[in-house]
Structure formats: structure tokens, C-alpha cells
């Protein structure tokens, strides 16, 4: 009797497990199939793609499509591969991530440890920035960037240098910093909310200044949230297409996402699916790499921020 009672829940839980893991496996497969197709296609020859099965493994794997995507494929009218645009993206994403993360940390520090009257309102307004749709700022931002361009011209005429004003890459960095500030501030404020204030007080008694406390006490103890912010910002900025196409949508200054779009849309002869897939993989690699390297901290950091605030 007692054996039967205890056996029933055990059997039920095994059943539950099978259902749960079965469902998880199915969804994982559905989610991974596109990636799988991209990957195998990028290693196939054109013949194989045209005659074979989409899901089949490559018969004679070749890296030629990757080489072609990187160095030879046509983006619009120039046929020098996507490598230049890859570096464009790097040049944009690194400063944008660094600046927005640093400013977010500084905001979080002030909003939790140096509170002033109305700090809640300021934080609320910064949060509001997270909910503004990209599209609604396109035109106003274009006007501002136009002004920057004018100012750059003025500087060039008077000093011979533009100091970056009017440079499309600099423009994109500016846009992404402004747009990312809401999110980075949110992350850091919630993290620092749970950060012991006594440490800041101890540093004050020790004679550390505002920035010394920030640099020597807060920042070295913020690794988890820095990782979260960097992953989040890196992914968003690297993958952004709207701002990139609006403010740097043509010529040599295009970021990777716009260039990839142009690779796929270039209509000269046959569509080279394998090259397109390789280019797409190259475009996705940096974000993938960031996740793999820092993903462990990602979950940990999200949790740390979630406890309080």
C-alpha cells in the first residue's frame, strides 16, 4: 500500500520530466534550425545549394564563401568584401559601449549615493528614455546631427579640423550613447541601490573625493553589472539597423548591418546564398563571442540587480 502510494508520484514526476524535456528539445531544435541552415549553407558550393537539400551537410566543405564574403563580394557598387564595414561597426560600437556604460555607471552612482532633491523624478525621466520608440527620434536626431555637421564645417573653415563633428561614425556613437543612457543608468542604479552605502561613507572619512570613490571603490566592485551592460549595449548597437541606415546608410561609412543588407540586395547575376550566409555569420560573430565570453556573468549580474530597487 505504502509502496504504491510512493510509486505513483515518482512515476508522475518521470512523466513530467519527459514532457518538459521533450518540449524543451523541440523548441531548441526549432530555434536552432535557421542557424544550422546558415552554417551548412555557408560551407557549401553553389552547385550543391541549387541541387541539394537545404538541411543536408555539405558534401565537400569549402571556406571559399567565407573568404569571398570577407574580401571580394559586392556591396552596392564596390566589390571589396565586407571587411571594411566590419571595422566600421567596431569603430562605432566600441566607443559607444564604453561611453554609455561609463556614463550609466556615473548616473547610477549619483542617483543612489549622492541623492539630491528630485532624484526620483530624474531617474523616472531617464527610465522614460527606455520606452521611446526609435522611429520617433529619427527626424529630430537628423536635425541635431545636421547642426553638428554645420558646426563641423565651421570648425574646418576656421581651424582646418572638424574635431569629429559631422563624421557619420561619430554621429552614430553619439546617437547610441544618448539612446543607451536610459538602459545603462537603469542597470547601474539598481545595482548600486544594493551597494553598501557604508563603503562610500568610509571612503569619505578616508578622504576620497567624488571621483576617487567612484573609481577606487564603486567601479572595481561592479564587474557583474558592467558585464551585463556591455553585453546588452554591444548587442543592441552592433545589431542596430535603423539608425545606421538613416545616418550612415551609404558609401564607405556604412556599419556592418547596412552593408549586409546591401550584400543581399546586390542583384548582379546569381544570388550567392553561400556568400550571403557567410557574411551574415560574420556579422553575427562578435555578439556571439561576447555572449560566450561573458554570458556566465550575464545571468549573475541580472540577478544581482534584481534583488533590490
Amino acid at each position: 500500500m505504502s509502496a504504491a502510494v510512493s510509486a505513483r508520484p515518482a512515476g508522475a514526476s518521470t512523466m513530467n520530466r519527459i514532457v518538459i524535456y521533450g518540449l524543451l528539445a523541440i523548441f531548441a531544435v526549432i530555434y536552432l534550425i535557421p542557424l544550422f541552415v546558415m552554417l551548412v549553407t555557408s560551407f557549401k558550393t553553389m552547385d550543391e545549394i541549387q541541387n541539394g537539400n537545404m538541411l543536408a551537410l555539405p558534401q565537400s566543405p569549402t571556406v571559399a564563401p567565407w573568404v569571398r564574403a570577407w574580401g571580394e563580394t559586392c556591396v552596392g557598387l564596390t566589390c571589396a568584401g565586407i571587411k571594411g564595414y566590419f571595422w566600421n561597426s567596431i569603430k562605432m560600437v566600441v566607443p559607444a559601449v564604453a561611453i554609455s556604460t561609463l556614463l550609466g555607471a556615473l548616473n547610477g552612482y549619483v542617483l543612489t549615493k549622492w541623492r539630491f532633491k528630485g532624484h526620483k523624478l530624474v531617474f523616472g525621466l531617464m527610465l522614460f528614455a527606455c520606452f521611446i520608440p526609435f522611429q520617433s527620434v529619427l527626424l529630430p536626431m537628423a536635425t541635431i546631427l545636421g547642426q553638428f555637421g554645420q558646426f563641423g564645417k565651421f570648425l574646418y573653415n576656421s581651424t582646418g579640423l572638424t574635431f569629429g563633428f559631422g563624421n557619420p561614425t561619430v554621429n552614430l556613437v553619439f546617437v547610441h550613447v544618448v539612446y543607451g543612457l536610459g538602459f545603462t543608468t537603469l542597470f547601474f542604479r539598481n545595482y548600486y541601490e544594493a551597494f553598501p552605502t557604508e563603503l562610500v561613507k568610509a571612503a569619505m572619512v578616508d578622504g576620497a573625493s567624488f571621483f576617487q570613490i567612484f573609481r577606487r571603490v564603486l567601479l572595481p566592485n561592479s564587474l557583474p553589472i558592467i558585464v551585463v551592460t556591455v553585453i546588452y549595449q554591444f548587442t543592441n548597437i552592433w545589431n542596430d539597423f535603423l539608425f545606421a541606415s538613416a545616418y550612415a546608410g551609404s558609401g564607405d561609412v556604412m556599419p556592418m548591418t547596412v552593408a549586409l543588407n546591401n550584400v543581399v540586395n546586390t542583384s548582379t547575376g546569381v544570388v550567392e546564398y553561400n556568400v550571403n550566409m557567410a557574411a551574415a555569420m560574420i556579422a553575427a560573430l562578435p555578439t556571439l563571442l561576447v555572449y560566450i565570453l561573458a554570458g556566465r556573468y550575464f545571468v549573475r549580474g541580472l540577478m544581482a540587480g534584481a534583488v533590490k530597487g
Partner: protein
Amino acid sequence: MAFLEIDRLVKRFGATEVLKGIDLSVEEGGFLVLVGPSGCGKSTLLSMIAGLDTISDGEVRINGRRVNELHPSQRDIAMVFQSYALYPNMTVAENIAFGLEMRGVPKAEREVAVAKVAETLQMGHLLKRKPSQLSGGQRQRVAMGRALVRDPQVFLFDEPLSNLDAKLRVDMRTEIKRLHQRMGTTIVYVTHDQIEAMTLATKIAVLKDGVLQQFGTPAEVYNNPVNVFVADFMGSPSMNIMPAAIRSENGKTVVALARKDEDDLVLDPGPASERLGGSIGQTVLFGIRPEAITDHDGADRNARTLVDVDCHVDVVEPAGSDTFVVTSLGGKHVIARMRSDAAVKSGGRAPFSFNMDKAVFFDPKTEKRVA
């Protein structure tokens, strides 16, 4: 002139006053303990001395210098925090040296100073560790080292022992006392533990609801509490306080305590007789510490007014070193502290010796001391 002077200090948060005009002073080398229940404003007071909280009104002077407007780092103070507040990313040595580094002391000098402090606190072997690798007691030591290294004019301690376990707390208490005796630096110490206050202080300030209740030496505060709150707060087990009638019998003033199913217990109030003269015919609160009620042979030999009476024994609590005997007087439980081998049994009767030299009397309405 005192070394640290706190003058009519007021702290307001909006319309609420949390400190209502505190006056305190400590001599150089003194050990001031701020004690009181939680929410009494003692930690706020300490923060204001440190400069971590602004001063709404009044003045704080250190060595004759007004420090109200000075940044914490310029007040020449060091503080030990309740949570220790060690920088988790720095080693013990870096933690201790941080204050010196911020003040621009050259590296070589810093190392000498750290080594000296490490020797004083016997923690040379810990210098290369991170705070996360230390035990609670060791962290406490590092926190003290960080304060010691700067050789400030005033040390501020904010409940430094409250995170330690009972045994370690007693050890560290002795350590702090020893350190104070050797260094002779002025200390302000916040605690809610009245035993810590008694053992460490040269002066105790008892606070309640932002008002200073009593300020004096530990003996004064313990033996001559100014009101019921102080009497009750200081001492463990706390003072027995019960209603008593003051009467005149044969021209002598006596204290009568109601007993259940028995005649009133009548006591000679001893040295308080004269001052109780005005209260004849009234009810007052009679306070007497457990150690002033003993078995006859355990009584203080120097006591001048010793009253022996038989009382009913409700409960006996042997505590090893003493035996606490509980009886009922004036409708309250009254604890007597007898020797551990006193022959008392619960349910029976036993002789109690009241040392009325130590008796105190309070007005039942104002709760202030009357005699």
C-alpha cells in the same frame, strides 16, 4: 574646556526633530558611550560628529575648533562602521593604507604605518588577504586598523561589535578597552548594549527619542538613574521597579509594598527617608537592583540599612555564579540575586535581605527621581 564638545545639537528631517538639543562633552582621552534603544538617535548623532549627516542646529567642536562645515576627511576623525565597510576589492594592507593614500602620504611611509598597525593588532599575517577571506573577528580588527593608522584626534565607533557572536564580542570588548588605555585617544562609541556601555565608558550618555536622558560616569548612571527609563535600561537583569506607598509610622517614614494574601511588606527607606518626607501618604515607584536584594549572608557588609524579611518564593533560576530568586511585591515580579548555594526552593518561603542604601524612588506620573 573639553576636547569634544556637542552644543545644543539638533537634527531635523523635514518637520520631525530626531535630535532635540543634545549637550555633551568629553575630555581628551575620554571614552564616551552613546547608548539607547534603537531609533533613539544615537547613530545619527555619531554621523553628525563624523560629518556624514548635516547639522540642523547647534555646534560640534573638536579641540576648540568648530567643525560643522568641515568635510568628514578634514575633521581629523576616524570611524569604525557596524558592517566594517572594508573595500572588498582591496587587500587588508590596501584597505588600511587607503586613507593615507588619499591624503597623499608617500608609499614608503604608508608601508611603515601599516606594518606598525598590523603589529599592534597582531594581524601581520593577514595583510595580503582580501576581506572576503577573513572571519568576522578578523574583519573587525582590520576595520579598527584602518581607523588606527591615521592617528586621528577622535575615534568614532558605530556599534562595532553587534555583528560578532557572543564570545568574540566579549573578547573584542576587552581588546578595545586595552587599546584605548594604551593609545589614550578620545573615543565616541555607539551601542545599544548597556553592558558594553558600562564596561567601556568613562562617560555614558543615555538617549531616548532624541532627548538626552542622563549623562554621567557609568557608576552615576547605574546607581543614581535620573528617571525610570534610565533605571530600567541600564543593568541586566534590569532594576526592580514597583509601586509603593509612603507612610509615616511612629514618626518614621516607611515604604509599604503590597503583597498577595499577606500583610504589606514594610521597609525602612534608609538614606532616602528625609527626601521622601514630602511624599507621605502618596504612592511612588520604588526601584531596587537585583543585587541589592540578597540572602542575608550574601548581603553587602558595608550596607547601613539592611532589612531582612521573609517572602514567598515564586521561581528559582540558578545561573551558575548566582541564583536569581523571583518573588512578587507591589504586583510586580521582583528578582533577587542570591549566592548560588543559597538554600531556596520555589513555592516555599525564604529570607530576603534588602539593602536600602541602594533604593531609589520615582514619581509615578513624571517618572522622574524623587529620592
